[in-house]
Protein backbone atom coordinates (compact mmCIF):
# COMPACT_ATOMS: atom_id res chain seq x y z
CA UNK A 1 0.00 0.00 0.00
CA UNK A 2 1.36 3.41 -0.97
CA UNK A 3 1.98 5.94 1.81
CA UNK A 4 0.76 8.93 -0.22
CA UNK A 5 -1.57 8.79 -3.22
CA UNK A 6 -2.76 11.83 -5.18
CA UNK A 7 -5.31 10.99 -7.89
CA UNK A 8 -6.30 13.78 -10.30
CA UNK A 9 -6.16 16.36 -7.53
CA UNK A 10 -7.17 19.89 -8.49
CA UNK A 11 -7.50 22.92 -6.26
CA UNK A 12 -9.04 26.06 -7.68
CA UNK A 13 -9.74 29.14 -5.57
CA UNK A 14 -12.71 31.41 -5.99
CA UNK A 15 -10.62 34.07 -7.73
CA UNK A 16 -9.64 31.59 -10.44
CA UNK A 17 -6.15 30.79 -9.12
CA UNK A 18 -5.24 27.16 -9.73
CA UNK A 19 -3.02 25.88 -6.92
CA UNK A 20 -3.00 22.24 -8.08
CA UNK A 21 -3.95 21.11 -11.54
CA UNK A 22 -4.91 17.45 -12.04
CA UNK A 23 -2.02 16.15 -9.96
CA UNK A 24 -1.50 12.39 -9.68
CA UNK A 25 1.39 10.57 -8.02
CA UNK A 26 2.08 7.95 -5.39
CA UNK A 27 4.86 7.73 -2.81
CA UNK A 28 5.81 4.41 -1.27
CA UNK A 29 6.66 3.95 2.42
CA UNK A 30 10.28 4.82 3.20
CA UNK A 31 10.87 6.87 0.04
CA UNK A 32 12.77 10.17 -0.01
CA UNK A 33 11.13 12.37 -2.61
CA UNK A 34 12.06 15.86 -3.73
CA UNK A 35 9.14 18.15 -4.62
CA UNK A 36 10.72 20.71 -6.88
CA UNK A 37 9.59 23.78 -8.70
CA UNK A 38 9.81 27.54 -8.75
CA UNK A 39 7.98 29.71 -6.28
CA UNK A 40 4.23 29.34 -6.84
CA UNK A 41 4.64 26.01 -8.65
CA UNK A 42 2.43 24.18 -6.15
CA UNK A 43 4.93 22.60 -3.74
CA UNK A 44 3.40 24.06 -0.60
CA UNK A 45 -0.10 23.34 -1.90
CA UNK A 46 0.85 19.63 -2.04
CA UNK A 47 1.82 19.79 1.62
CA UNK A 48 -1.29 21.77 2.60
CA UNK A 49 -3.49 19.28 0.77
CA UNK A 50 -1.77 16.38 2.54
CA UNK A 51 -2.49 17.79 6.01
CA UNK A 52 -5.99 18.81 4.88
CA UNK A 53 -5.34 22.49 5.38
CA UNK A 54 -7.75 22.78 2.46
CA UNK A 55 -10.07 20.44 0.63
CA UNK A 56 -9.33 19.85 -3.08
CA UNK A 57 -11.86 21.03 -5.62
CA UNK A 58 -11.70 17.56 -7.20
CA UNK A 59 -9.65 14.39 -7.00
CA UNK A 60 -8.73 11.99 -4.23
CA UNK A 61 -5.90 12.10 -1.69
CA UNK A 62 -5.02 9.07 0.41
CA UNK A 63 -2.52 9.16 3.26
CA UNK A 64 -1.52 5.82 4.77
CA UNK A 65 -4.75 4.32 3.42
CA UNK A 66 -6.98 7.15 4.70
CA UNK A 67 -9.13 8.94 2.12
CA UNK A 68 -8.95 12.57 3.19
CA UNK A 69 -12.28 13.38 1.54
CA UNK A 70 -14.08 11.16 4.03
CA UNK A 71 -12.00 12.24 7.02
CA UNK A 72 -14.09 13.88 9.74
CA UNK A 73 -12.98 17.27 11.02
CA UNK A 74 -12.34 15.90 14.48
CA UNK A 75 -9.90 13.35 13.01
CA UNK A 76 -7.74 15.95 11.25
CA UNK A 77 -5.42 16.33 14.30
CA UNK A 78 -4.79 12.56 14.18
CA UNK A 79 -3.91 12.83 10.46
CA UNK A 80 -1.51 15.69 11.19
CA UNK A 81 0.29 13.59 13.78
CA UNK A 82 1.10 11.15 10.98
CA UNK A 83 2.71 13.97 8.98
CA UNK A 84 5.52 16.02 10.47
CA UNK A 85 5.85 19.39 8.78
CA UNK A 86 8.97 21.57 8.67
CA UNK A 87 8.86 25.12 7.30
CA UNK A 88 11.37 27.44 5.74
CA UNK A 89 10.67 30.00 8.49
CA UNK A 90 10.78 27.30 11.22
CA UNK A 91 7.56 28.51 12.92
CA UNK A 92 9.12 28.13 16.36
CA UNK A 93 7.54 29.80 19.37
CA UNK A 94 10.11 32.47 20.11
CA UNK A 95 9.13 32.92 23.75
CA UNK A 96 9.85 29.28 24.54
CA UNK A 97 13.08 27.40 24.90
CA UNK A 98 14.26 24.61 22.62
CA UNK A 99 13.01 22.05 25.13
CA UNK A 100 9.64 23.81 25.49
CA UNK A 101 9.17 23.98 21.72
CA UNK A 102 9.70 20.23 21.48
CA UNK A 103 7.66 19.58 24.62
CA UNK A 104 4.75 21.40 23.03
CA UNK A 105 4.46 18.71 20.37
CA UNK A 106 4.85 15.99 22.99
CA UNK A 107 2.25 17.59 25.24
CA UNK A 108 -0.24 17.62 22.36
CA UNK A 109 0.15 13.83 22.28
CA UNK A 110 -0.67 13.72 25.99
CA UNK A 111 2.48 11.83 26.92
CA UNK A 112 3.37 11.27 30.57
CA UNK A 113 6.17 13.56 31.82
CA UNK A 114 8.73 10.78 32.09
CA UNK A 115 8.02 9.43 28.59
CA UNK A 116 8.01 12.95 27.17
CA UNK A 117 11.40 13.81 28.67
CA UNK A 118 12.87 10.54 27.34
CA UNK A 119 11.46 11.22 23.88
CA UNK A 120 12.66 14.84 23.94
CA UNK A 121 16.20 13.73 24.79
CA UNK A 122 16.11 11.23 21.91
CA UNK A 123 15.03 13.99 19.53
CA UNK A 124 17.70 16.38 20.79
CA UNK A 125 20.28 13.63 20.31
CA UNK A 126 19.01 12.81 16.81
CA UNK A 127 19.07 16.42 15.68
CA UNK A 128 22.37 17.27 17.35
CA UNK A 129 20.86 19.76 19.77
CA UNK A 130 21.92 18.18 23.06
CA UNK A 131 23.06 20.93 25.42
CA UNK A 132 20.83 23.55 23.75
CA UNK A 133 17.67 22.63 25.68
CA UNK A 134 17.51 25.86 27.64
CA UNK A 135 18.34 28.20 24.76
CA UNK A 136 15.69 30.39 23.23
CA UNK A 137 15.33 30.43 19.41
CA UNK A 138 16.93 33.89 19.18
CA UNK A 139 20.09 32.41 20.69
CA UNK A 140 20.32 29.79 17.92
CA UNK A 141 21.70 29.88 14.41
CA UNK A 142 19.38 29.33 11.44
CA UNK A 143 20.52 25.74 11.10
CA UNK A 144 19.93 25.06 14.77
CA UNK A 145 16.47 26.59 14.60
CA UNK A 146 15.66 24.33 11.66
CA UNK A 147 16.89 21.36 13.67
CA UNK A 148 14.55 22.32 16.50
CA UNK A 149 11.71 22.50 13.97
CA UNK A 150 12.65 19.05 12.68
CA UNK A 151 12.86 17.66 16.21
CA UNK A 152 9.45 19.10 16.96
CA UNK A 153 8.00 17.69 13.74
CA UNK A 154 9.37 14.26 14.61
CA UNK A 155 7.94 14.29 18.15
CA UNK A 156 4.79 12.34 17.31
CA UNK A 157 6.91 9.78 15.40
CA UNK A 158 5.19 10.60 12.11
CA UNK A 159 5.17 8.20 9.21
CA UNK A 160 5.75 11.10 6.82
CA UNK A 161 7.99 14.15 7.16
CA UNK A 162 7.28 17.01 4.77
CA UNK A 163 10.01 19.64 4.76
CA UNK A 164 8.85 22.74 2.91
CA UNK A 165 11.96 24.58 1.67
CA UNK A 166 13.83 23.67 4.87
CA UNK A 167 17.10 25.05 3.55
CA UNK A 168 15.72 28.25 2.07
CA UNK A 169 17.10 30.47 4.84
CA UNK A 170 20.36 28.61 5.40
CA UNK A 171 23.88 28.85 4.02
CA UNK A 172 25.17 26.05 1.83
CA UNK A 173 27.06 24.15 4.51
CA UNK A 174 24.24 24.31 7.03
CA UNK A 175 21.70 23.43 4.33
CA UNK A 176 23.72 20.33 3.48
CA UNK A 177 23.78 19.26 7.12
CA UNK A 178 19.98 19.58 7.26
CA UNK A 179 19.62 17.43 4.14
CA UNK A 180 21.92 14.87 5.71
CA UNK A 181 19.75 14.92 8.83
CA UNK A 182 16.65 14.37 6.70
CA UNK A 183 18.50 11.48 5.02
CA UNK A 184 19.24 9.96 8.43
CA UNK A 185 15.58 10.29 9.41
CA UNK A 186 14.57 8.66 6.12
CA UNK A 187 17.02 5.79 6.69
CA UNK A 188 15.15 5.04 9.93
CA UNK A 189 12.00 4.34 7.91
CA UNK A 190 10.24 7.72 7.76
CA UNK A 191 8.91 8.72 4.35
CA UNK A 192 10.42 12.11 3.57
CA UNK A 193 9.18 14.72 1.10
CA UNK A 194 11.33 17.79 0.70
CA UNK A 195 10.14 20.78 -1.26
CA UNK A 196 12.93 22.83 -2.78
CA UNK A 197 13.81 24.96 -5.74
CA UNK A 198 17.56 24.55 -5.13
CA UNK A 199 18.59 21.43 -7.03
CA UNK A 200 22.28 22.10 -6.39
CA UNK A 201 21.85 20.73 -2.89
CA UNK A 202 20.67 17.35 -4.09
CA UNK A 203 22.61 16.98 -7.31
CA UNK A 204 24.78 14.23 -5.84
CA UNK A 205 21.86 12.30 -4.41
CA UNK A 206 19.86 9.75 -6.33
CA UNK A 207 16.44 10.87 -5.26
CA UNK A 208 13.06 10.74 -6.90
CA UNK A 209 11.93 14.19 -8.02
CA UNK A 210 8.39 15.44 -8.57
CA UNK A 211 8.69 18.50 -10.77
CA UNK A 212 5.87 21.03 -10.46
CA UNK A 213 5.04 24.02 -12.63
CA UNK A 214 1.97 26.25 -12.34
CA UNK A 215 0.26 23.73 -10.08
CA UNK A 216 0.75 20.80 -12.40
CA UNK A 217 3.07 17.82 -11.97
CA UNK A 218 5.08 18.09 -15.16
CA UNK A 219 7.60 15.35 -14.52
CA UNK A 220 8.06 12.48 -12.10
CA UNK A 221 11.75 11.58 -12.21
CA UNK A 222 11.82 8.22 -10.43
CA UNK A 223 14.78 6.72 -8.65
CA UNK A 224 15.24 4.13 -11.34
CA UNK A 225 14.80 6.69 -14.10
CA UNK A 226 17.36 8.91 -12.38
CA UNK A 227 19.88 6.05 -12.55
CA UNK A 228 19.24 5.62 -16.25
CA UNK A 229 19.66 9.30 -16.93
Amino acid sequence: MSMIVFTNVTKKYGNGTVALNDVSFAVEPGEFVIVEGASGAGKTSVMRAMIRDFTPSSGVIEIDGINLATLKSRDIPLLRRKIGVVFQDFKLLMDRTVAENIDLALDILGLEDETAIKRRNELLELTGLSGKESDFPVQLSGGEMQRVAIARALAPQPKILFADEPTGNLDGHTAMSIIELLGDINSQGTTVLMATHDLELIKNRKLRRLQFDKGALVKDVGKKEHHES
Partner: protein
Amino acid sequence: MSRKLGTTLKHMRRSPYQSIAAAVLTTITFFVVSVFALVVMGAHGMLTYFESRPQVTAFFKDSATAADVETLKTSVSALGTVESMNYISKDQALQIYKEQNKDNPLLLEMVTADILPASLEVSAKNATDLEPIATVMQKDTTVEEVVFQKDVVDTLTKWVNGVRIAGVVLSGLLLFASLVTIVVILGLKFTARRAEIKTLSLLGATSWYIRGPFVLEGIAYGLIGAGMGWGAAYVSLLYATPPLASFLQGIPLLPVPLWIMGALLGGELVLGILLGGFASMIATRRYGR
Protein backbone atom coordinates in the same frame (compact mmCIF):
# COMPACT_ATOMS: atom_id res chain seq x y z
CA MET B 1 -5.55 20.16 32.61
CA SER B 2 -2.70 21.55 34.72
CA ARG B 3 -0.89 22.63 31.52
CA LYS B 4 -4.05 24.34 30.30
CA LEU B 5 -4.39 26.15 33.63
CA GLY B 6 -0.74 27.16 33.39
CA THR B 7 -1.26 28.45 29.86
CA THR B 8 -4.39 30.30 31.00
CA LEU B 9 -2.50 32.08 33.79
CA LYS B 10 0.30 32.92 31.36
CA HIS B 11 -2.23 34.45 28.93
CA MET B 12 -3.70 36.53 31.76
CA ARG B 13 -0.30 37.72 33.00
CA ARG B 14 0.88 38.68 29.51
CA SER B 15 -1.92 41.20 29.02
CA PRO B 16 -2.67 42.33 32.57
CA TYR B 17 -4.68 45.45 31.72
CA GLN B 18 -7.10 43.54 29.51
CA SER B 19 -7.42 40.86 32.18
CA ILE B 20 -8.03 43.44 34.91
CA ALA B 21 -10.64 45.21 32.75
CA ALA B 22 -12.55 41.96 32.25
CA ALA B 23 -12.32 41.06 35.95
CA VAL B 24 -13.39 44.54 37.12
CA LEU B 25 -16.42 44.66 34.83
CA THR B 26 -17.58 41.18 35.82
CA THR B 27 -17.03 42.12 39.48
CA ILE B 28 -19.22 45.23 39.11
CA THR B 29 -21.82 43.14 37.30
CA PHE B 30 -21.97 40.51 40.00
CA PHE B 31 -21.94 43.17 42.74
CA VAL B 32 -25.06 44.70 41.19
CA VAL B 33 -26.60 41.24 40.71
CA SER B 34 -25.91 40.45 44.40
CA VAL B 35 -27.30 43.76 45.65
CA PHE B 36 -30.49 43.44 43.62
CA ALA B 37 -30.89 39.81 44.62
CA LEU B 38 -30.60 40.80 48.29
CA VAL B 39 -32.95 43.77 47.89
CA VAL B 40 -35.55 41.67 46.07
CA MET B 41 -35.25 38.87 48.65
CA GLY B 42 -35.54 41.43 51.46
CA ALA B 43 -38.54 43.11 49.89
CA HIS B 44 -40.16 39.74 49.32
CA GLY B 45 -39.50 38.84 52.97
CA MET B 46 -41.05 42.14 54.02
CA LEU B 47 -44.08 41.46 51.87
CA THR B 48 -44.47 38.00 53.37
CA TYR B 49 -44.11 39.53 56.82
CA PHE B 50 -46.87 42.03 56.20
CA GLU B 51 -49.09 39.44 54.55
CA SER B 52 -48.70 37.11 57.51
CA ARG B 53 -49.37 39.87 60.06
CA PRO B 54 -52.85 40.98 61.14
CA GLN B 55 -53.90 42.99 58.20
CA VAL B 56 -56.67 45.09 59.68
CA THR B 57 -56.22 46.75 63.01
CA ALA B 58 -58.95 48.60 64.82
CA PHE B 59 -57.86 51.05 67.51
CA PHE B 60 -60.51 51.56 70.18
CA LYS B 61 -61.50 54.81 71.76
CA ASP B 62 -60.52 55.19 75.41
CA SER B 63 -64.19 54.90 76.30
CA ALA B 64 -64.56 51.43 74.78
CA THR B 65 -65.43 48.74 77.28
CA ALA B 66 -64.73 45.01 77.27
CA ALA B 67 -68.30 44.45 76.14
CA ASP B 68 -67.75 46.77 73.18
CA VAL B 69 -64.69 44.76 72.22
CA GLU B 70 -66.63 41.51 72.43
CA THR B 71 -69.44 42.99 70.33
CA LEU B 72 -67.00 43.96 67.63
CA LYS B 73 -65.35 40.53 67.77
CA THR B 74 -68.75 38.90 67.29
CA SER B 75 -69.63 41.18 64.37
CA VAL B 76 -66.34 40.50 62.62
CA SER B 77 -66.46 36.74 63.27
CA ALA B 78 -69.95 36.63 61.81
CA LEU B 79 -68.44 37.40 58.40
CA GLY B 80 -66.83 33.91 58.42
CA THR B 81 -63.68 35.14 56.73
CA VAL B 82 -61.49 35.67 59.78
CA GLU B 83 -58.37 33.60 60.23
CA SER B 84 -57.52 34.88 63.68
CA MET B 85 -58.14 37.77 66.02
CA ASN B 86 -55.95 39.21 68.71
CA TYR B 87 -57.00 41.80 71.26
CA ILE B 88 -54.21 43.98 72.58
CA SER B 89 -54.98 45.89 75.74
CA LYS B 90 -53.43 49.22 76.66
CA ASP B 91 -50.96 47.47 79.01
CA GLN B 92 -49.96 44.97 76.31
CA ALA B 93 -49.54 47.83 73.86
CA LEU B 94 -47.15 49.49 76.31
CA GLN B 95 -45.14 46.28 76.67
CA ILE B 96 -44.85 45.99 72.90
CA TYR B 97 -43.83 49.63 72.65
CA LYS B 98 -41.18 49.14 75.35
CA GLU B 99 -39.81 46.04 73.62
CA GLN B 100 -39.59 47.82 70.26
CA ASN B 101 -37.80 50.83 71.73
CA LYS B 102 -35.71 49.18 74.43
CA ASP B 103 -32.53 50.62 72.91
CA ASN B 104 -33.88 54.15 72.92
CA PRO B 105 -34.66 55.27 76.49
CA LEU B 106 -35.70 58.73 75.33
CA LEU B 107 -38.71 57.26 73.54
CA LEU B 108 -39.74 55.37 76.69
CA GLU B 109 -39.86 58.41 78.91
CA MET B 110 -43.26 59.89 79.57
CA VAL B 111 -45.08 57.04 77.79
CA THR B 112 -47.69 55.26 79.84
CA ALA B 113 -50.38 52.72 79.06
CA ASP B 114 -53.01 55.46 79.16
CA ILE B 115 -51.82 57.21 76.04
CA LEU B 116 -51.69 54.00 73.98
CA PRO B 117 -54.96 52.72 72.51
CA ALA B 118 -56.22 49.17 72.88
CA SER B 119 -56.60 47.43 69.54
CA LEU B 120 -58.02 44.43 67.77
CA GLU B 121 -55.77 42.84 65.15
CA VAL B 122 -57.66 40.75 62.62
CA SER B 123 -56.06 38.43 60.11
CA ALA B 124 -58.22 37.40 57.15
CA LYS B 125 -58.19 34.08 55.30
CA ASN B 126 -57.72 35.86 51.97
CA ALA B 127 -56.56 39.32 50.99
CA THR B 128 -59.93 39.92 49.30
CA ASP B 129 -61.66 39.49 52.67
CA LEU B 130 -59.88 42.46 54.22
CA GLU B 131 -62.15 45.17 52.89
CA PRO B 132 -65.47 43.81 54.31
CA ILE B 133 -63.78 43.30 57.70
CA ALA B 134 -62.47 46.87 57.65
CA THR B 135 -65.92 48.19 56.70
CA VAL B 136 -67.54 46.45 59.68
CA MET B 137 -64.86 47.85 62.00
CA GLN B 138 -65.19 51.40 60.66
CA LYS B 139 -68.95 51.34 61.29
CA ASP B 140 -68.42 50.52 64.98
CA THR B 141 -68.77 53.70 67.05
CA THR B 142 -66.29 52.54 69.70
CA VAL B 143 -63.52 52.37 67.12
CA GLU B 144 -61.28 55.44 66.77
CA GLU B 145 -59.28 54.39 63.71
CA VAL B 146 -58.89 51.44 61.36
CA VAL B 147 -55.51 50.76 59.86
CA PHE B 148 -56.02 48.82 56.69
CA GLN B 149 -52.70 47.21 55.75
CA LYS B 150 -53.89 46.10 52.33
CA ASP B 151 -52.76 49.47 51.03
CA VAL B 152 -49.34 48.92 52.56
CA VAL B 153 -49.10 45.46 50.99
CA ASP B 154 -50.29 46.73 47.62
CA THR B 155 -47.75 49.54 47.64
CA LEU B 156 -45.02 47.18 48.76
CA THR B 157 -45.97 44.68 46.05
CA LYS B 158 -45.65 47.42 43.45
CA TRP B 159 -42.26 48.38 44.84
CA VAL B 160 -41.06 44.77 44.89
CA ASN B 161 -42.17 44.27 41.31
CA GLY B 162 -40.54 47.53 40.28
CA VAL B 163 -37.27 46.69 42.01
CA ARG B 164 -37.35 43.18 40.53
CA ILE B 165 -37.85 44.51 36.99
CA ALA B 166 -35.18 47.19 37.46
CA GLY B 167 -32.81 44.57 38.88
CA VAL B 168 -33.42 42.14 36.04
CA VAL B 169 -32.99 44.87 33.40
CA LEU B 170 -29.86 46.41 34.96
CA SER B 171 -28.30 43.02 35.75
CA GLY B 172 -29.16 41.82 32.24
CA LEU B 173 -27.51 44.89 30.67
CA LEU B 174 -24.40 44.50 32.82
CA LEU B 175 -24.21 40.77 32.13
CA PHE B 176 -24.46 41.53 28.41
CA ALA B 177 -21.74 44.21 28.74
CA SER B 178 -19.53 41.70 30.59
CA LEU B 179 -20.20 39.08 27.94
CA VAL B 180 -19.24 41.47 25.14
CA THR B 181 -16.14 42.64 27.03
CA ILE B 182 -14.90 39.08 27.61
CA VAL B 183 -15.65 38.18 23.98
CA VAL B 184 -13.69 41.21 22.73
CA ILE B 185 -10.73 40.68 25.07
CA LEU B 186 -10.47 36.95 24.40
CA GLY B 187 -11.03 37.55 20.69
CA LEU B 188 -8.09 40.00 20.66
CA LYS B 189 -5.90 37.57 22.57
CA PHE B 190 -6.90 34.71 20.27
CA THR B 191 -6.15 36.80 17.19
CA ALA B 192 -2.82 37.99 18.63
CA ARG B 193 -1.74 34.37 19.04
CA ARG B 194 -2.93 33.16 15.65
CA ALA B 195 0.60 32.25 14.52
CA GLU B 196 1.09 30.09 17.58
CA ILE B 197 -2.38 28.61 17.13
CA LYS B 198 -1.61 27.77 13.51
CA THR B 199 1.59 26.02 14.60
CA LEU B 200 -0.29 24.05 17.24
CA SER B 201 -2.85 23.07 14.65
CA LEU B 202 -0.16 21.87 12.26
CA LEU B 203 1.38 19.82 15.07
CA GLY B 204 -1.91 17.94 15.43
CA ALA B 205 -3.41 19.78 18.40
CA THR B 206 -7.11 19.16 18.88
CA SER B 207 -9.66 21.97 18.93
CA TRP B 208 -10.03 21.65 22.71
CA TYR B 209 -6.26 21.72 23.21
CA ILE B 210 -6.11 25.07 21.42
CA ARG B 211 -9.34 26.62 22.67
CA GLY B 212 -9.17 25.12 26.17
CA PRO B 213 -6.91 27.77 27.76
CA PHE B 214 -9.08 30.56 26.31
CA VAL B 215 -12.26 28.90 27.57
CA LEU B 216 -10.68 28.49 31.01
CA GLU B 217 -9.62 32.15 30.93
CA GLY B 218 -13.21 33.20 30.21
CA ILE B 219 -14.46 30.99 33.04
CA ALA B 220 -11.78 32.47 35.32
CA TYR B 221 -13.09 36.00 34.64
CA GLY B 222 -16.62 34.80 35.41
CA LEU B 223 -15.53 33.13 38.66
CA ILE B 224 -13.36 36.05 39.78
CA GLY B 225 -16.19 38.50 39.05
CA ALA B 226 -18.79 36.35 40.82
CA GLY B 227 -16.58 35.79 43.87
CA MET B 228 -15.44 39.39 44.24
CA GLY B 229 -18.83 40.91 43.40
CA TRP B 230 -20.51 38.68 45.96
CA GLY B 231 -17.79 39.43 48.50
CA ALA B 232 -18.15 43.18 48.02
CA ALA B 233 -21.93 42.93 48.37
CA TYR B 234 -21.61 40.79 51.51
CA VAL B 235 -19.15 43.21 53.15
CA SER B 236 -21.47 46.12 52.27
CA LEU B 237 -24.40 44.22 53.78
CA LEU B 238 -22.48 43.56 57.00
CA TYR B 239 -21.71 47.27 57.32
CA ALA B 240 -25.30 48.22 56.54
CA THR B 241 -26.91 45.66 58.85
CA PRO B 242 -27.01 47.76 62.10
CA PRO B 243 -28.72 50.84 60.58
CA LEU B 244 -30.99 48.67 58.44
CA ALA B 245 -32.01 46.53 61.40
CA SER B 246 -32.88 49.69 63.31
CA PHE B 247 -34.90 50.98 60.36
CA LEU B 248 -36.75 47.68 59.89
CA GLN B 249 -37.44 47.25 63.59
CA GLY B 250 -39.72 44.33 64.24
CA ILE B 251 -39.37 42.90 60.73
CA PRO B 252 -37.10 39.86 61.03
CA LEU B 253 -35.05 40.24 57.82
CA LEU B 254 -31.59 40.78 59.26
CA PRO B 255 -29.06 39.36 59.63
CA VAL B 256 -29.38 37.52 56.31
CA PRO B 257 -28.98 33.78 57.02
CA LEU B 258 -25.65 32.33 55.91
CA TRP B 259 -27.34 29.65 53.83
CA ILE B 260 -28.96 32.36 51.72
CA MET B 261 -25.59 34.04 51.16
CA GLY B 262 -24.08 30.63 50.35
CA ALA B 263 -26.86 29.86 47.87
CA LEU B 264 -26.39 33.30 46.29
CA LEU B 265 -22.65 32.70 45.97
CA GLY B 266 -23.24 29.25 44.46
CA GLY B 267 -25.74 30.62 41.97
CA GLU B 268 -23.43 33.46 40.97
CA LEU B 269 -20.45 31.13 40.55
CA VAL B 270 -22.54 28.96 38.22
CA LEU B 271 -23.69 32.08 36.35
CA GLY B 272 -20.06 33.23 36.18
CA ILE B 273 -18.95 29.91 34.70
CA LEU B 274 -21.76 30.04 32.13
CA LEU B 275 -21.02 33.69 31.29
CA GLY B 276 -17.26 33.19 30.89
CA GLY B 277 -17.58 29.86 29.16
CA PHE B 278 -20.17 31.14 26.69
CA ALA B 279 -18.16 34.31 25.98
CA SER B 280 -14.97 32.34 25.32
CA MET B 281 -16.80 29.90 23.07
CA ILE B 282 -18.03 32.86 21.01
CA ALA B 283 -14.55 34.44 20.98
CA THR B 284 -12.90 31.26 19.70
CA ARG B 285 -15.74 30.04 17.50
CA ARG B 286 -13.89 30.98 14.33
CA TYR B 287 -11.33 28.30 15.09
CA GLY B 288 -14.07 25.78 15.76
CA ARG B 289 -15.46 26.20 12.28
